[in-house]
């Protein structure tokens, strides 16, 4: 497709996206988080505080101009740790979604196209099994069977995430396959591979992409919860959930140690949700 048409397309997409000012806010927040995560060394006031650092003289200081979010029990600047913590949140979201989505989508496409056959039954019932286990319980089970590390937490979340995409794409694919353009492709003699990936899949993209954007918030939340209960990233890793957990012992006296990481978890999730709403508006009706 030539560049003229692409520019037109993006101008139109922006028009739809920016109809709601909150979507722009979401986009701004997300871009800021990504930027800060990548260049945390630059943005953090005390980058050396991120991991292992001790300064008991300055420990448990409340928020001040030197430490905007205060310091924690080891004397580390909380704001700097939070900025580095963004990395773990984003890495978790990106890894989980990029690993869970492809197989989920693929299975959904196949099951949806072969609706009402044995393929459909097997795939969807397996998905149902995964979906029927409460996600936290499954994640906890996987994590406790293996060593508690960030990597294993991501694995656990991935394992229980794919069926949501299967179900989503199953619904979309099974209705799209009845559209005339799919039948036209069948009549022409196109292969099943082409029909799945050339005809049906492109029409599912909007739905998938919208869900992925909204899922980032969920993955981060679950990841933080796992860290909070000690099954994810371990100290001294500046993971936001771990930070909330570490600080919980000091509530209410040194409330800032838990509050600010928690607040930023909320901000990240909110940012992605607002962005996701905007993405949905942008892609809706396409």
């Amino acid at each position: 497709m030539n560049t003229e048409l692409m520019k037109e397309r993006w101008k139109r997409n922006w028009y739809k996206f920016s109809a709601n000012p909150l979507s722009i806010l979401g986009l701004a927040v997300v871009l800021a988080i990504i930027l800060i995560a990548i260049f945390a060394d630059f943005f953090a006031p005390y980058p050396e505080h991120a991991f292992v650092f001790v300064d008991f003289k300055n420990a448990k200081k409340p928020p001040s101009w030197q430490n905007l979010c205060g310091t924690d029990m080891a004397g580390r600047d909380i704001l700097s740790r939070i900025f580095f913590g963004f990395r773990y949140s984003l890495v978790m979201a990106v890894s989980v979604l990029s690993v869970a989505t492809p197989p989920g989508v693929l299975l959904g496409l196949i099951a949806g196209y072969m609706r009402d056959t044995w393929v459909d039954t097997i795939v969807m019932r397996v998905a149902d099994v995964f979906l029927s286990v409460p996600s936290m319980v499954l994640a906890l089970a996987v994590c406790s069977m293996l060593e508690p590390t960030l990597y294993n937490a991501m694995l656990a979340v991935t394992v229980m995430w794919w069926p949501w995409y299967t179900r989503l794409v199953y619904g979309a694919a099974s209705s799209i396959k009845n559209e005339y353009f799919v039948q036209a492709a069948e009549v022409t003699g196109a292969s099943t591979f082409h029909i799945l990936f050339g005809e049906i899949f492109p029409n599912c993209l909007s739905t998938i992409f919208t869900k992925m954007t909204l899922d980032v918030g969920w993955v981060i939340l679950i990841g933080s919860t796992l860290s909070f209960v000690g099954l994810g990233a371990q100290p001294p890793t500046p993971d936001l959930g771990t930070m909330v957990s570490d600080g919980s012992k000091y509530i209410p006296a040194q409330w800032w140690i838990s509050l600010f990481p928690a607040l930023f978890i909320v901000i990240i999730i909110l940012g992605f949700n607002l962005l996701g709403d905007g993405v949905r508006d942008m892609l809706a009706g396409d």
Partner: protein
Amino acid sequence: MSKEILVVKDLKKYFATDEGTVRAVDGISFTINEGETFGLVGESGSGKSTTAYTLMGIYTPTAGEITYKGKDISTGIKKRPLSLKKEMQMVFQDPGSSLNPKRSIEQIIALPLQVHGIAKDERRKRVIELLRMVELPEDYLDRQPTKIGGGEKQMVAIARALATNPTFITLDEPTSALDVSMQAKIINKLIEFQEELDLSYLFITHNLSLMRNVATRVGIMYLGKLCEVAPTSVFFSNPLHPYTKMLLSSIPVITSEEEAVKPDKVVSRGEIPSPVNVPSGCYFHPRCNECTERCMREDPPMVEVEPGHFVKCHTMSE
């Protein structure tokens, strides 16, 4: 003497649903000759679209035989040989959904060429040629279907159907979704292509005035059965089946000349019953003014009343 290109014998297509078996097509037989346009007319629930889809293989026949150029093709599309799919093509009812909104016009028209092994640069040349044939500008190649009008979409669908040089095209209500001026343009093009490229058409529409001017022969369906088949002029000037008469007399027309050629008004009674619960005997009997006791018991046979004119009604055999 025209050769037969498509022969349908006692075709049945039933669907199993929660409410029971839907007898969408319930034993129909007809032939289509080379170079002709066979029109299939009927209201909703008549089974005309199901017939088309079964002929094209989108549905697998429940029973009966379909023969194309002498070879038996009574299977679903996946089991049919690739060479057959080159020859039989289809234009669908709704231009909006018969083109994939996520693909460009070039990709859409090139798909049949790709499937049948044409090389990439050959494909592009052929697509440009096809666009020229349907009078669309070359810069439409990169456009998305959503950016062009309904009539133009249908032209793209026709270009796609012509891509592999088929011999038989099924047209399912090709102009129903379009306005009158677009309709005229498209039908004229279709007629032009038929002459130039020696095509045979199965033409489905509920618009009888259109059918009058397009079809060589017409068949009318009701609840899965063919009621009457005749050459077009005979069908419209001498309809014999009570349903045909009812339908023809209900057509809204503008001019008084047209009003005069319509059969006497048969006030339409009742509605088409559900295909799950078909009436006994002749399917049309509950709505028929000429219904007799025999009609309620026995399904009438298809009788050749005069050469080429077939009627399925007990009044014909009395």
